[in-house]
Each structure stands twice: as structure tokens, then as C-alpha cells.
């Protein structure tokens, strides 16, 4: 056990910090779920990519830096500490990207990854359907083979940032009459294909952050199938593993929130300490944030030694989503009656609080996660 950063890691941190100081916009960009904000965030992704920072763990040939996972952690830490913009293309870069690396053909990697890194292609996920949420194997949208195309019919929903996206990735039923997780294929679909209709859904914060997608005889070439036809479930589970396990929620995001929470508490300490459970919650939230960071360093250390992520990683999503709730709930308690007001002081906390409500729901609800922990990590019986 050695908890020191290497000289190279410290140098990398210094490099990223200097770059962020120079490039992060002085004023926060408009929300990426507005058209103006979408464009501004797309431009930011291009700026990031110009330094090889869009997908730093990717090979250099595909637009990345070939960075280690420790460097990824350091990058994320500096990124969030600099209050840099949210990552518009995160579902592409952090979820589809690693899946493409693992399952994509050379042609698919060369075709999609550099454009993804540059945000020339903006990607949205298309997992859920009206009848398939937590129960993703209930997917009904069909993709019927017709020569060298699939013909897609059906509906997807809760597709984050699909409104102005260029492509989606998701699971479609390619084998007629197949059941559950059999007969599904992982398809990549350009949203400008005739027959695609996108209907924005207004979220809790008033903005159309996700959308429904309707498919009416949408023809997609067969080279847009990722992995073998009918093997989509296994490919998708790999994506789910990245999302829950590691990449999508680096600890740095929560460490930055924890830092803001400490500042908020100290600035309002006299009022906050009238309720000593607030002080307790601040200590607990910040300590839990460190626990998440430490756990991630442990996971990365194990991966660096050649181990695979085990079933214990299914505890991650439960922990970070509940941590995010605790951080924001505590902040609102400190703000007291000011919390509900749309003021510069309160707005960011309230927006974060609302987003935190979604954490235990998306990427597999926490009830499902607890089943996974019990069944796969603890070995409890399925039925």
C-alpha cells in the first residue's frame, strides 16, 4: 500500500490544472438543455478535444491520450475543482465509448470514436421504453432485418439530451418472438434517418432534458450493429457496468460539492448550529464523499494490477446516488427559508438537489441495485 502520487501523476495534475485555468469559461455556460447552452457546450467539448482531454483514457489514435485510470481520476478531480462545464457528450464518451472499444469492429471504432471525442457526433442513450424501465429485458421496439438494413418500429423514452443529439445507442428486438434478454441487438441509430420523430419531455427543472423517440419504419444499415446480432444484452450489460461501476460518476463531482457544502456551512454556522443535526450531516456527508473517493482509488488500484471489477461494484451506484442526496439535502437545510428562492445563492443548490432526486432512479433504480448486490455479491437466491 502506497498512497503517494508519483512524480508523473503530480506533473499531470499540474498540467491539467494549468490548462483548466486557461480554458474554463469565466462565466458559467447557459444550461445545456437550452439550445444556446447546447451549442456552447458542444463548442466546449471541441476545446477539450483539442487538448486530447475529451476521452483521456482512449488510445491516442482514436482521439484520446492513452491515460491510465489514475490519470483519469486526477483529470476528473481538476476538472470539477475548476468548475468546468458539464460534459454534454457524457453518455457517448463514458458509456458508449468504452463499449465500442470492447465490442466494436476496427471500422466502427475508426468511424465513431474520433467524431465522438470531437463532439462532431453528439450521442444519446435509448434504453428505456414505456413498458421497459427497471425491467429493461421487457424491450419491445423491433428491428427487423431487411437485406443489409434493419427496419425499426416502436418507441424509446427518457432519452437524455436526445433533442439535439445526432445519434442514439440502445437495445432493439431483432429476433421476432424472442423473450426477455434473448434476441436483442445493440444498434447505433442516426437521428436524421427518415421515420424518426423526437418529442422533448420537460423535466422537473422546466427544461427539456430528455425526450421520447418514435420509430416508424426507420432503416438502419447492418454495420450499425455493435457486437453480434442477438448478443445485445451482453454488450449493454458492459455499458451498464461502466456507468454504475466507475466512469460516469467519478468522485471528483461529489468532492467539489462537498467543498462547496463546507464553505456554505461555515458561512452560515451560527444559524445552522441551532440544529446540531446539521453539523452532524455536514461531517457525515463530507466523510462519505471521501469514502467514495477512497473506494474508487481502491478499485482503480485493483484494475491497475490486472483484476476485474467484481460484483461489489454494484454497491457504487447506491452509494453515490444517496451521497448526492445527502450533500444537497444538507445544503438546503443550511439555507433554510432561503432555499426555495430563485437567487444566485440558492439556485445551484436547488438545481443540484432536484438532479439528486433522479440519481436513485436512473441507471437502474436503487431497488434493482440492491437486488443485484444481494444476488450477485452476497449470493442470495433469485426467486
Amino acid at each position, binding site marked *: *500500500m502506497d498512497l503517494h502520487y*508519483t512524480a508523473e501523476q503530480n506533473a499531470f495534475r499540474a498540467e491539467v490544472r494549468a490548462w483548466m485555468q486557461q480554458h474554463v469559461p469565466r462565466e458559467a455556460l447557459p444550461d445545456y438543455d437550452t439550445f444556446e447552452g447546447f451549442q456552447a457546450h458542444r463548442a466546449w467539448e471541441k476545446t477539450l478535444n483539442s487538448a486530447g482531454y475529451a476521452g483521456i483514457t482512449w488510445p491516442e489514435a482514436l482521439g484520446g491520450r492513452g491515460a491510465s485510470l489514475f490519470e483519469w481520476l486526477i483529470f476528473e478531480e481538476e476538472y470539477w475543482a475548476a468548475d468546468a462545464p458539464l460534459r454534454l457528450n457524457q453518455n457517448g464518451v463514458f458509456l458508449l465509448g468504452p463499449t465500442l472499444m470492447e465490442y466494436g469492429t476496427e471500422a466502427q471504432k475508426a468511424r465513431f470514436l474520433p467524431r465522438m471525442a470531437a463532439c462532431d457526433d453528439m450521442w444519446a442513450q435509448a434504453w428505456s421504453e414505456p413498458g421497459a424501465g427497471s425491467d429493461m429485458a421487457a424491450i419491445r421496439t423491433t428491428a427487423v432485418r431487411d437485406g443489409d438494413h434493419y427496419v425499426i418500429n416502436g418507441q424509446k423514452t427518457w432519452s437524455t439530451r436526445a433533442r439535439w443529439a445526432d445519434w442514439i445507442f440502445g437495445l432493439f428486438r431483432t429476433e421476432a418472438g424472442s423473450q426477455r434478454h434473448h434476441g436483442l441487438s445493440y444498434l447505433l441509430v442516426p437521428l436524421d434517418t427518415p421515420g424518426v420523430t423526437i418529442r422533448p419531455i420537460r423535466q422537473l427543472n422546466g427544461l427539456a432534458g430528455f425526450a421520447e423517440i418514435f420509430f416508424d419504419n426507420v432503416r438502419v444499415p447492418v454495420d450499425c450493429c455493435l457486437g453480434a446480432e442477438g448478443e445485445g444484452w451482453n454488450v449493454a450489460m458492459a455499458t451498464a457496468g461502466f456507468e454504475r461501476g466507475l466512469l460516469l460518476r467519478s468522485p471528483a463531482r461529489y468532492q467539489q460539492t462537498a467543498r462547496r457544502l463546507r464553505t456554505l456551512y461555515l458561512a452560515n454556522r451560527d444559524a445552522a448550529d441551532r440544529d446540531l443535526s446539521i453539523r452532524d450531516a455536514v461531517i457525515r456527508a*463530507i466523510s462519505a464523499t471521501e*469514502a467514495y473517493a477512497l473506494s474508487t482509488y*481502491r478499485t482503480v*488500484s485493483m484494475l491497475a494490477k490486472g483484476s476485474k471489477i467484481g460484483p461489489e461494484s454494484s*454497491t457504487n451506484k447506491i452509494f453515490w446516488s444517496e451521497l448526492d442526496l445527502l450533500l444537497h439535502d444538507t445544503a438546503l437545510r443550511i439555507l433554510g427559508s432561503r432555499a426555495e428562492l430563485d437567487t444566485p445563492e440558492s439556485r445551484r443548490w436547488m438545481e443540484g438537489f432536484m438532479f439528486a432526486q433522479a440519481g436513485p432512479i436512473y441507471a437502474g433504480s436503487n431497488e434493482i441495485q440492491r*437486488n443485484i*448486490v*444481494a444476488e450477485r455479491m452476497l449470493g442470495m437466491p433469485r426467486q
Partner: protein
Amino acid sequence: MDFTYTDDQRAFRDAMRALLMVEASPERVREGWELDAGISPQLQELIAAQGLSALSVPEAFGGLGLADTDWALLSQEFGYYAVPDAALNTAYPAACLIAALPDAPSLQQATLPRLAAGELQLAISHPLNPLVADADRADLVLAWADSEVHAVPRSAVDVSALASVDPARRLYRVSLETGAGTRVADAAQGEVLWRELINRSNLAICGQLLGLTQRILDISIDYSAQRKQFGKAIGSFQAVKHHMADVAVQSEFAKPVFNRAAWAVEHGHPLRDVYVSQARLACSEAAALAARNGIQLHGAMGYTWECDLQIFMKRIWALASSWGDAAFHKARVADWLFAPDTEIGPGKTFI
């Protein structure tokens, strides 16, 4: 950067586990309940014969000189098998304190080799530890007096027994006289020595709590697979699964906090007090939930004397406030966290 244990460390832990699995069965732990010592003679002999009491004694005095991160793994095994206190969990911080005494070579010569050989028992009296475990059997009591360290022979200590909820614990209130003849470190030296002892005592408790948590998970999950209601194993019901998943989540995220604390104590990190207290709060919480959810899962069986759950559950209850209650540990965290110059976050509090 490498936040993992070495293969050697894990191999030693595995060997200890294999030994205790055979020798520290629940039946053997129960045997100890009926005895004055609280521990079965076989288990006590085993500890001496296997040289387990030599673990934390420096090599120069005939011990193995294990480091704090080694102990972090072993103490989880002692917890898992509910090995009672004195021989191991007290010996670790006490031996480290004696070895670190700057100016007491004769005491070191007189105690450490005998401790390594399993011929000497120690007890520790400190304001944070008013319930002194195994004081009546100790040859020597290490005592705090206005930050000084005193080594008081058993003959100069009056003990009165106190009954613990944990039938294996042997607790005593002690009264003892300290003076120039018993002083082995002055107050300035003592400040440093007691600080490390408090940290190590807490590491030992953290490790035990994590081991106890894992044991309760294991026995509860076993029980949930055997016990059938409504025609199927109760472990297949989601409400039951979620009780166990909640414990697993807390335990998984207490472990790295504990590992950092052990590393920080081993390396004299400036924030080691804070890291130890954060670990203690996390481990205590995980263990308390394990005890609560463990008995819930066992149903009425868990409320019986016969069920082995009580061995582990009561140890968790007993250790809850040992070597600092939650208020003490939260204060250690708060004093640092809310100090004006403190910086938290990446590069500040990880290492």
C-alpha cells in the same frame, strides 16, 4: 499510488483465517463464557503456541514487528471469529506504546520478550477507556495520569469487576496509585504516546467491527437460504435482500476509510487522528446496522440464547463506545474539518 494490500499480507491473513476457523468456533467462544478468563484455555494456549501475542512486538525483542496495515487485515479476522480482547487487541496498541517509550529500556527488556512469548498480559487504563478489559489477569497495567505514562504492577492495582452484555468480556474498574516509581514517560512524551495508542486501539476496534459485520452477513445469509416461509427461502424476498444489501453497502465503503487510517498511522501522517475517527464512525455505523438487520433477518430465532448470532451482535454492542464514543470521534473530525485553514478535496485529504 497503490491502494491494495500485498500478496504477502493477504496470505498471512488467509493463514490466520484458516487457523481461527478451526480453533475459534462458536462452541469454543461459548466455553469461555463460563470461565473466569472469558476465553477457553485451548484458545488461550493456541494464541501463545502460535506466537500470536508476538505479532506487534518489534523483532529486536523477539516479536514479528507487524505494521499497522498488517494488523488492519488480522484484526478483521479476530472480529470475524469473536476472539476476546486481551491477548491480541490490547497487546497490539500496548506493545507499540512500550516499544516507542523513549527512555525506558529496562521496562522494554522486562516486558516485550515476555509479551512476545505469551507469558505477559497487559491492560490499559485511560480516561477514554474507563472499563479496563482483563485488568485482574494483567501482570502490568499501563496507566494514564495527567498525560504521563505509568506502568503499574498488578499488585498495586485494585480491581472491581463489572458485568458486560457480552459474556466474553471481562471488564473492571481499576484504582491504582501512580508516582515517580511507576512513571515511564513524562507528560510531553506521553501526549505523543497516548495519541498513537488511542489511534491503534481504535484501529483494532474498527477491524473487529468490520469482521463482525462480515460474520453477521455470512450467518444471516446462510440462515435466509435455509429458512422457508410461504414455500420459499426467505432470502428470496426483496425486503430481506435489501436488509443485507444495505449492510454490504455500508461495509464496502467503510473498508477503504479504515485502510487509509491504518496506512496513515503506520506512516505517521499528520491527519491520522482525523482519518482514524472517520474510520471509526464508518465502521461503527456499518456494524450497528449489521447487528440490527441481522437479528431482524433471524426472526425469533435471533432472540434466543441458542442462536450464535448473539456472540457477534453483542460484541458489536459492547464495542460501540469503547475507546471513544461517537461524540469524541465526531469532535476530532469537526475540529479539523471546520478549522479556517483546512482545505478538503483532491490532493488535500486523500493522502
